[in-house]
């Protein structure tokens, strides 16, 4: 079978499966049978976490830069897209609905605002990335954290987007929708999760991806080989931010966005997902996102206060993984999606990134090189 037919079939299977799951998750259910709404909530959250984790992995896992403010970009995506649906798109949607029907109109508008959310987050990524990515990794970490906090403080101070109250809809003196429409269902989340995985996978397995991994492995050497490290770092950062924006837009049209949902605790949660799953493994990130979404809910049912200690358990796990296995649960390994690969990359692409020990994040014990880098940055 030609590859493209195979991929088309694959895409169809995914879309059909998502449709069936989505129907089962709806209020009516699929043929009257449905998934309990509590689990629906968790699955939606899991899907959004997958997008966040996989996109963060591009910058943290593959490029070796350390961002701990991912949630800031998510907030940008959530608020910018919700701002549009509340204050701008209602009229257009009504006009479209008259021609195409309400559902199609909503889908068009939602796609549009998600893209705007992604663009806004990408722009924010560019603004943060350009000054800070020139610097050493740990400065980036603090700068991203600081940026995410600044975003949150801005949100809290802007009345038109609900300020500290959370954004529910149009705020009094300004006309608009009174509630943010709940466009997001599992279909949307699922499709964008798949898109995120496919796009990041293809980036990682392209020339750009090679450049990114070379930066992670040894930035000096990469520069020496003619890689424009700053440009590649900024590119990766912007793409990563854009997907966080998508996740935010999806979240914003499901739960009403509230500044308390975008604190740095949430950023750390995403980091735990990718570290648990393995820095530099896309499937690992997916797995990490699922575990971190469902595990606490499982612990909730265990008596004896285990649930209260779940965050302690995560933190201890994080330290233990770093000490014993700094490359994470799956290391850099991938599994089970060779079929997604671009055909022309087959020869070198079969070993997914990080296979055969290519990804060892660390184990560099070269204080001299470290020093040199420090001097340079100073």
């Amino acid at each position, binding site marked *: 079978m030609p590859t493209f037919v195979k991929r088309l079939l694959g895409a169809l299977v995914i879309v059909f499966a998502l449709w069936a799951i989505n129907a089962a998750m709806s209020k009516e259910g699929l043929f009257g049978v449905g998934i309990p709404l509590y689990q629906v909530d968790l699955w939606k959250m899991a899907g959004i976490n997958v997008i966040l984790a996989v996109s963060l992995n591009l910058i943290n896992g593959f490029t070796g830069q350390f961002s701990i403010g991912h949630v800031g970009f998510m907030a940008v995506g959530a608020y910018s897209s919700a701002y549009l649906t509340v204050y701008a798109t209602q009229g257009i949607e009504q006009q479209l609905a008259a021609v195409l029907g309400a559902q199609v109109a909503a889908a068009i508008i939602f796609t549009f605002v998600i893209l705007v959310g992604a663009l806004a987050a990408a722009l924010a990524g560019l603004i*943060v990335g350009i000054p800070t990515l020139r610097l050493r990794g740990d400065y980036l970490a603090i700068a991203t954290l600081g940026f995410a906090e600044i975003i949150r403080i801005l949100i809290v101070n802007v009345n038109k987007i609900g300020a500290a109250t959370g954004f529910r809809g149009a705020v009094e003196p300004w006309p608009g929708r009174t509630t943010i429409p709940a466009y997001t269902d599992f279909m949307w989340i699922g499709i964008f999760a798949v898109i995120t995985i496919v796009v990041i996978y293809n980036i990682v397995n392209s020339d750009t991806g090679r450049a990114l991994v070379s930066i992670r492995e040894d930035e000096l050497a990469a520069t020496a080989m003619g890689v424009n490290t700053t440009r590649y770092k900024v590119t990766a950062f912007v793409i990563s931010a854009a997907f966080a924006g998508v996740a935010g837009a999806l979240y914003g049209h499901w739960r009403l966005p509230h500044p308390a949902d975008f604190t740095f605790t949430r950023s750390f949660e995403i980091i735990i997902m990718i570290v648990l799953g393995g820095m530099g493994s896309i499937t690992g990130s997916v797995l990490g996102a699922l575990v971190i979404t469902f595990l606490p809910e499982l612990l909730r049912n265990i008596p004896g206060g285990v649930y209260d200690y779940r965050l302690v358990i995560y933190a201890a796990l994080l330290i233990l993984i770093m000490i014993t296995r700094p490359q994470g649960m799956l290391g850099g390994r991938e599994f089970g999606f060779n079929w997604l690969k671009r055909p022309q990359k087959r020869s070198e692409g079969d070993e997914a990134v990080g296979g055969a020990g290519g990804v060892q994040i660390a184990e560099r014990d070269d204080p001299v090189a470290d020093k040199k880098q420090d001097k340079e940055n100073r």
Partner: protein
Amino acid sequence: MDTFVQQLINGLNVGAIYALIALGYTMVYGILRLINFAHGDIYMVGAFAGFFIANGMGLAGPSWGGLLVVLVGSMITAALVGMAIERFAYRPVRKYSRMTTLITAIGVSLLMENLFVARFGGQGRGFPQLLQDRAYHLFGNAAISKSQILIFAVSIALMVLLQWIIFRTKVGTAMRAVSFNLNSAKLMGINTNAIITFTFALGSALAAAAGVLTAQYSPTIDPLMGITTGLKAFVAAVLGGIGNIPGAVLGGLLIGVAETMVVGYGANFGIASTYRDAVAFAILILVLLLRPSGLLGTTVQEKV
């Protein structure tokens, strides 16, 4: 005028606390090139240690002796905690990349915060007031309170002590040697592990002092109190030039004053007082853009 002087006093007071914490960041960074994310939580541990010591001793009312015991006791406790963190979390990952150590540091920070939340609850608790607090009027409306004087006095004393340890003692010389070049120091017969542990102990003790002093001034402690304060102190260290001790103090005071001035006079320039927490981070991004080495980063070579 008196309002301005008052705001200056308020700002320097907050800044002194930042400075005490920033010293720990800057010392550890000078030696290990590690951002000790957990340092802000050491400040929290110090405050809690003080709380339990004071309650354990049944101290409820003001007493200078009690305050001294609580201060020293919490400094010792925090020093031990800092040493344990260094020994069991940071030393095993020291050989790995920066990223691994940074994640470990975040892990330690999360561990302490969540352990305290799970154990003691996330709500604030009142710290026993060991000082009969009162305001002394300076001129006009300007006043300074006893707890503010205490903060200034103790932090200046501790900074002088630190300066003495680093420049006048053998262990201080060793610290400077290790920060200059760890491997060479090892070759010169310096027990680098011991020196690193000592640095953590020193920095942690200063943070604990900051914790107890803050608790006398604003008597609420909670397990998450170290996050924002710690981050701002880190920004102070970067502002002053990370690795540079006078820089950390200068950075701390500057950030404290800048924050308070935004609260006091920001409204005149269209900046709401609630942007206060954004000030430190905005300063950070500006410093990174304009002068990544910090204010005193290049001029002073001696670093620990």
